[in-house]
C-alpha cells in the first residue's frame, strides 16, 4: 500500500486476530494509520476517530476534524479508506462529525509520548487555557520543558507554526527550536 500523502510504502496492516470481529480488526488497522503532518501518531492516538461501526455491508468510520481548515483532513480520510481496503475490510464510508468539537485533550497518553519522542511538546489540558481572561498586555506564556534537554528555559517564538495544530518555540539552554502541539 502507498501512503496517500507522500507516496511512500506503508507497513502491512495488522492481520486479523482469530476470533476478533470485523470492527475490532478495523480498529487495529486504524491504529496504524498515521497523521500525514505528524507521521508518528495515528489517527486513533490523535482522537480523530470517534467511532467505528457497520451499516449494511459497509464499515462506517466516524471522524472529527482537528481544525476547521486543516488541509490534512481529506488526506486522512483517504488514508483510512485505503488502509481498511488493504486489510480486506472495505467498503468503507467516512462520516464527518463536527460535534462535539475535537479538543487536544483527546490525544491519548501513548500519542503524547510519541509526540514528545518526535520533538513536539504535547498539549497541556485545555481547561487551563480555555476560560483564560482577556489579557491586554503582551502575555508571559508559561514555559514548556524542552523535548531535547529538559530545560525549562524556553520561549515561544511564534503562536503559529508549520501546521495549524502547532506553535514554534525555542530552548535557550540547548539553543534548539522545537514545536508545541497547541492546546485547543
Amino acid at each position, binding site marked *: 500500500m502507498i501512503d496517500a500523502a507522500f507516496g511512500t510504502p506503508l507497513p502491512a496492516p495488522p492481520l486479523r486476530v482469530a476470533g476478533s470481529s470485523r470492527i475490532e480488526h478495523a480498529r487495529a488497522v486504524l491504529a496504524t494509520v498515521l497523521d500525514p503532518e505528524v507521521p508518528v501518531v495515528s489517527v486513533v492516538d490523535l482522537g480523530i476517530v470517534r467511532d467505528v461501526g457497520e451499516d449494511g455491508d459497509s464499515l462506517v468510520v466516524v471522524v472529527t*476534524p482537528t*481544525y476547521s481548515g486543516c488541509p490534512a483532513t481529506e488526506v486522512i480520510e483517504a488514508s483510512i479508506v485505503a488502509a481498511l481496503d488493504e486489510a480486506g475490510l472495505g467498503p468503507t464510508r467516512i462520516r464527518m462529525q*463536527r*460535534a462535539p*468539537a475535537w479538543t487536544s485533550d483527546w490525544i491519548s497518553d501513548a500519542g503524547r509520548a510519541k509526540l514528545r519522542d518526535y520533538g513536539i511538546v504535547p498539549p497541556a489540558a485545555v481547561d487551563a487555557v480555555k476560560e483564560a481572561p482577556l*489579557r*491586554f498586555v*503582551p502575555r508571559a506564556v508559561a514555559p514548556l520543558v524542552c523535548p531535547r534537554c529538559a530545560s525549562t528555559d524556553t520561549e515561544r517564538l511564534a503562536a*503559529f507554526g508549520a501546521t495549524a495544530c502547532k506553535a514554534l518555540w525555542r530552548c535557550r539552554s540547548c539553543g534548539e527550536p522545537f514545536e508545541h502541539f497547541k492546546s*485547543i
Partner: protein
Amino acid sequence: MQSITVSSHPSVQYLLRIGDTCLILAQRLAEWCGHAPIVEEDIALTNMALDLVGQARAVLTRAGQLEGELGGAPHDEDQLAFLRDERDFRNCTLVELPRGDFAVTMLRNLAVAIFLELLWQRLEGSSDGELAAIAGKAVKEARYHREHAADWVVRLGDGTEESAARLKAALELLWPYFAEIFEADAVDAEADASRLGPRWADLHDDWRARLTAVLAPAGLSLPAERAFRSTGKSGRHSEHLGYVLAEMQHLQRSFPGGVW
C-alpha cells in the same frame, strides 16, 4: 461561466453574511503570504486565513443545503464561493478593504476576531444543529486569533513613535466601517426569531468593551460615532470587492468545474 442565483430567504442570507465575512477576510490575509514583515507573521497570517477558509467552507456548505431544504435549488460551497456576483456577496465591507499595512491588518483582525468569538459563542446554541457544531470548533480558533491580534495591537500602539502613528492611522481608517457589523435589519431579526443565531446588534456592547480594553494599553480610545454606514451585508459593496472576486473566482469562471 454563468453566475448562480441564490435564495433570498433570511436564514440563507444570515449564513452567507457569516460565511462571506470569513471567506473574504481569509482572501485578504492570504495576500500576506510571502510579504509579511517577519516569517513568523507570514505563517501566522496564512494559518489564520486557513482557519477562516475552513469556517467559510462549512458555513457556505450549510447555506447551500438550506437553500435546498427550503424548496429552492441547493448549491455547494464552491458554487457559492466562485459563481456569485459581487452584489450577491454578503460580507461586511470592513473585510474587503485592502489589507493596508501591518497595523491595518492587525487592527482589523482584532475587531473581527472579537466579533466572531462573540458570534460563535452564541451560535453554539443555534437551533440549527450543524451551525452549532461548526461554531463549537470555530470559537476556539477565533479565540486564538483574537489573542494574537490583541498582542500585536498593544505592541504596536505601545511601541515606537512610528508603530504608534501607524496604529492610530489604522484606527481612523477602519473605524467608520466597524459600525456596519452591528446594524440591525430584517435578516437579523428573523435569525433571532427562528433561534438560528443572535442579532449582531446584540453583540455590540460586549464587542465595544473588549475592543476598548485592548486599545487602552495601546494608547488609543475609540473615536466618536460617525453617520457613515457601509452596506456590504446587503450586497452594496465598496469598489474593492470586485477586484478580490476577480482574483478569487478567475479559475472557476474561465475553466468551469476545474479541479486539482
